[in-house]
């Protein structure tokens, strides 16, 4: 291992560089010709997100909803109820794993698995910092959009396999919703890709770095970028079944939608996938429009705020903070708004978001071509 020269006194930079070295050393770790080091490195963000989404996503949701509703939320397990989710997971682990007798057993069992894989595969192409990316694909964005569609298969398998009328309703609604909303979402992301000129997530992020911080983000680089940004945010709410588009699991209509019949760990896996997708779409919107792991702080004169707050470790911090921010907005909306009806949801998708997505696509194209 090579020690970084101590000329960089700044602590984050020191950490960052040694981390780079460390990760490069890990990539070179190939016992018996197997790229084990690479796998470990790729798994680190995934494991982090899995832990995050299970414990602190759920905990955050409960606390945020509690504060919005004049309640305290979980307070008993640990200080401020911090360990509440762990207790819940332990409870779910102990639960009997029930497969209904009339269910299609194969589909019922693989449903949550497919759902989980669909939502977590996209993490492979998310750049967590300049040093952290699972797979630096040159079509990363395309991969992220495409792989999420696998979730639909899992949802349909779960809903159909449960052999429950409510589950089937939930599954059919969900499939219709996700497939429809992929169109405005993809077009909106394409606007970002057009501004970058690449589908590589890492390159998209790098194009948004600079000493003026947030001023380099695509959202602020063109006067029309807020339109695809807004469209993608709304469409992403629908894609991850969050309120006001949570009609597939509308608890007052469909009991619990496609996961009505699930218990124990299978239920937890579905839940994990849901929180995983929440972070995933939040990370994608931060990468494409808000600079990903770039620091939003600008340099002010000789006060090099941007340089100090950039680096591989800071990158992880920034992208997770940006992701958390969007998750917070998602929760905020969920606990404020009522739910749309299925036909209103489809109306919004096909007659509002999709045309506006096309408009923003054309405007962005004009901007990219004629404005240097």
């Amino acid at each position, binding site marked *: 291992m090579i020690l970084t020269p101590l000329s960089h006194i700044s602590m984050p930079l020191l950490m960052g560089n040694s981390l780079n070295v460390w990760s490069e050393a890990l990539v070179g770790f190939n016992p018996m010709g197997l790229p084990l080091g690479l796998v470990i490195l790729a798994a680190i963000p995934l494991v982090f997100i899995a832990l995050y989404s299970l414990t602190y996503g759920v905990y955050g949701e409960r606390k945020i*909803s509690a504060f919005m509703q*004049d309640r305290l939320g979980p307070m008993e397990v640990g200080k401020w109820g911090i360990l509440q989710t762990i207790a819940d997971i332990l409870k779910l682990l102990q639960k009997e794993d029930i497969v209904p007798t009339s269910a299609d057993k194969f589909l019922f069992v693989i449903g949550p698995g497919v759902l989980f894989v669909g939502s977590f595969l996209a993490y492979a192409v998310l750049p967590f910092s300049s040093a952290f990316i699972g797979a630096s694909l040159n079509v990363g964005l395309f991969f992220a959009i495409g792989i999420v569609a696998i979730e639909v298969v899992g949802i349909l398998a779960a809903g159909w396999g449960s052999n429950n009328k409510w589950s089937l309703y939930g599954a059919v609604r969900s499939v219709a919703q996700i497939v429809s909303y992929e169109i405005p979402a993809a077009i909106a992301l394409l606007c970002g890709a057009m501004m970058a000129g690449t589908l590589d997530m890492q390159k998209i992020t790098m194009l948004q770095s600079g000493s003026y911080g947030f001023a380099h983000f695509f959202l602020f680089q063109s006067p029309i970028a807020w339109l695809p940004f807004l469209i993608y945010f709304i469409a992403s709410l629908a894609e991850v079944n969050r*309120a006001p588009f949570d009609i597939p699991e*509308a608890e*007052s*209509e469909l*009991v619990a939608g496609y996961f009505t019949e699930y218990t124990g760990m299978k239920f937890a896996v579905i839940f994990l996938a849901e929180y995983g997708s929440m972070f995933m779409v939040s990370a994608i919107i931060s990468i494409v429009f808000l600079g990903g792991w770039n620091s939003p702080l600008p340099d002010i004169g000789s006060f090099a705020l941007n340089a100090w707050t950039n680096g591989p470790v800071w990158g992880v911090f920034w992208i997770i903070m940006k992701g958390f921010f969007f998750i917070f907005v998602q929760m905020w909306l969920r606990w404020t708004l*009522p*739910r749309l*009806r299925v036909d209103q949801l489809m109306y919004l998708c096909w007659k509002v978001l999709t045309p506006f997505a096309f408009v923003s696509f054309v405007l962005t194209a004009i901007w990219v071509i004629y404005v240097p």
Partner: protein
Amino acid sequence: MQELDRAGMGSVRVTRKGNNVVVLEKDLATEQMVLAMGPQHPSTHGVLKLECLTDGEVITEAVPYLGYLHRCFEKCCENVDYPAVVPYTDRLDYLAGMNSEFAYAIAVEKLLDVEIPRRVEFIRVIVAELNRIASHLVAIGTYGIDLGAFTPFLFCFRDREIILSLLEWASGARMLYNYIWVGGLAYDIPSDFNRRVKEFVDYFRPKTVELYKLLTENEIFVKRTRGIGIMPADVAINYGWSGPMLRGSGVKWDLRRNDPYSVYPELDFAVPVPDGKTSDVGDCLSRHLVRALEMEESLKIIEQCIDKMPSAEGFNPRSAVPKRVRPKAGEVYGRAENPRGELGFYIQSDGKSTKPLRCKARSSCFVNLSAMKDLSKGQLIPDLVAIIGSIDIVLGEVDR
């Protein structure tokens, strides 16, 4: 290419290729699915079962099945003394126990022809109106949940909790009060009660505005409720609707005004009916609006009652309570405006017994629910949920 109708296949589109018939398209409009909504379902507000015939998400027919919470109220009444019926009436509409007791007391007092002290009347009106607010808060809050808005529900329950603790302070119980007795009250109100009620009124006024902003004016909420489940006034009257349901259809019918009882004629309050501007008259939003506006009228009534109430000097809440209720032979129908409509008690007395010969409760929820078949035809499942929520049923009163 031709259309054929084959046994068991519905209508199919076929084409001929040589000697073979090739099916191009089968008619997919096939069977209807029976969907049992309830008795264990989050939005049926208890143990109501709706058997829906559905074509996709469109409901072609919904039939309510009742009786899961039947507790033989009327048979119980025939076996206990007149005053002992009061606790049973609490368990009819358990969200508005005071109002149920009030209706029963009115019926028996009519039969007995007793004079009630004025202070008792004022206290009765205050607790009944407080309970009306509490009941409407539950109705509005759960309606929010039915449409996916969770937060207004908890806001409503936070405010309802204050009312419940006030009523608990007066009667000793949170929901099943046994406070309004035949001929009087169980206890006088605590000495500081009126001040605390006034405090609540001052606290609650801004909260209704907050609720209005959060729920009633919400674009999505209006989209989900406006124009859904429209009930014309004439059909509503034919069904025997009453209360906020009937007023939602534009009929200005409130028993506190149209068949005044207690001290209501002395009080100044409006009977809100939808004007057709913010909502289509008779739809779910109108019924919701009527409830929201009624809460403010109830606040007005409470304030006036506190001002007009005679002092507690030499007051005995049980002074007119008969030692033994043995009415003359006859029959009576007493009714009161409950949060959910007209609750009436039809009582027959044989003149010998201290127990009613017959005690029939005319339940508002039951009557309102009977229109379900009409309301649900051709609606989507989410709209059905919105309609059930707007009827605001309490299964305790439906099944009795």
